């Protein structure tokens, strides 16, 4: 049995992908490394493009929190077409032990 934390990514069409994401890696990188559809990550995790947008499932929102006000992430997200209060850019979420089991949903499109 692996002890590596897991993240579940749910596509817009409800297809779920549970994958292992090593500690310290971003939630975006976890999706890219496992070829999970729905996260584009054009800029490779530089917080320059807002194409790794995810919605945090409600039960995880307290642990994840919201983007720091005035941050690059907050600024980029405020222009995403379908932003919700639980929107985050997954390149800015580093995997931690207490995030094992995290569930995120993807928007219909990233562009």
């Amino acid at each position, binding site marked *: 049995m692996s002890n590596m934390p897991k993240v579940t990514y749910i596509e817009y069409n409800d297809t779920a992908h549970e994958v292992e994401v090593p500690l310290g890696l971003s939630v975006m*990188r976890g999706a*890219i*490394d*496992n*070829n999970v*559809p729905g996260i*584009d990550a*054009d*800029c*490779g995790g*530089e917080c*320059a*493009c*807002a194409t790794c947008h995810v919605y945090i499932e409600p039960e995880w929102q307290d642990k994840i929190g919201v983007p720091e006000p005035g941050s*690059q992430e907050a*600024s*980029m997200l*405020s*222009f995403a077409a379908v932003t919700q209060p639980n929107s985050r850019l997954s390149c800015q979420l580093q995997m931690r032990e207490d995030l094992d089991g995290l569930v995120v949903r993807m928007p219909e*499109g990233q*562009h």
Partner: protein
Amino acid sequence: MSQSDARIVIVGAGHAGGSAAAFLRQYGWKGPITLVGEEPIAPYQRPPLSKAWLKGEADAASLALRPDSFYPSSDIALRLATSAVGIDREARAVALSSGETLAYDHLILALGSRARKLSLPGLSLAGVLELRTVAEADQLKAALGPGKRLAVIGGGYIGLEAAASARALGAEAVVIERESRVLARVACPELSAFFQDYHRAKGVEIVVGAAIEALEGVDGHVTGVRLSDGRLIGCDAVLVGVGAAANEELARDAGLACNGGIVVDLAARTADPLIHAIGDCTHRPLPLYESMGRLESVPNALEQAKQAAADLCGRAPPTPEVPWFWSDQYDLRLQIAGLPLGAAETVLRGDPAAAQFAIFHLDADERLLAVEAINATPEFMGGRIMIGKRKKIPGKKLRDMSLSMRDLAA
């Protein structure tokens, strides 16, 4: 033949080729996929090479497009350290440098671009470098450090990023540009002036309007750049970054139309229904600008990789994107959306002295064509949205900082 037997060969294992293979599997392609790449390593991201990688802030795993385990687990055959030397369209086969031939049912050309060559005495001296591959980045890195001096020929993005990284590593840097300003081909004069001032304030010497006579060396190693006015710029290494040319020869030799890039449509199709082409090597439609052109960027590589994969898998084509680019230098983040093709008016918003501003480009009908934003994410994001909508907006509104970009873009 069912799709599960149809063989896709992708020639070129850069950002475009590697992404196409991944998207094909995401979209459900069942048949064999073979990815042929010249370099000895699996597809990786090139943008960090002049930045984080050069400064030692990125490792091989973070550079990789996908982990090595992805290829076997996705049943994608990697043929690395191998180049394609010819395409036989009738026989539907690609000849490889190894002497083998690979049969295909569908071929994707992701041939990339290569550094433009100068014609100068001394180019073969040791210490004269280019920057496109991780191997070249490692050579450059080894030449940088305290007490070293790097001469950069060409004031484009690669050259300026490398100069900024050289400074971060404690080396001196001189940028030598033929035109009267840096970024002459890719940015407006106001932005060029801003970057020149910023680099100079960081200790980079910038020489514009410079004609180079030769590279000079001692014992086979470069020691300086001789300008035609007689000046000698001493250095320990030279980075040549004077633009890129499309690798289109393989396609042209196979009879496919090329025009400074392989000509494709919005589904990344060439004139041969069995051959797609994607990324830096293409001459592609620019639908927002009713024009064709070549885009050297990661977003373009990804967009066309999706177009080709969607077309092959019978999916609806992806929505055309607004071209965009980014560059990080020092604490500056430059983000550009759109292309200033046919621009008639330039509008400044924000304060260049505070290193936070944007330059908008409008056509004669006040339609937004492009935005160049420095540390100005709302201007970039809002501008990108407006460009995509072909929105008309008066310059005086864009200039007015009391109006938010969110409201302007709505």
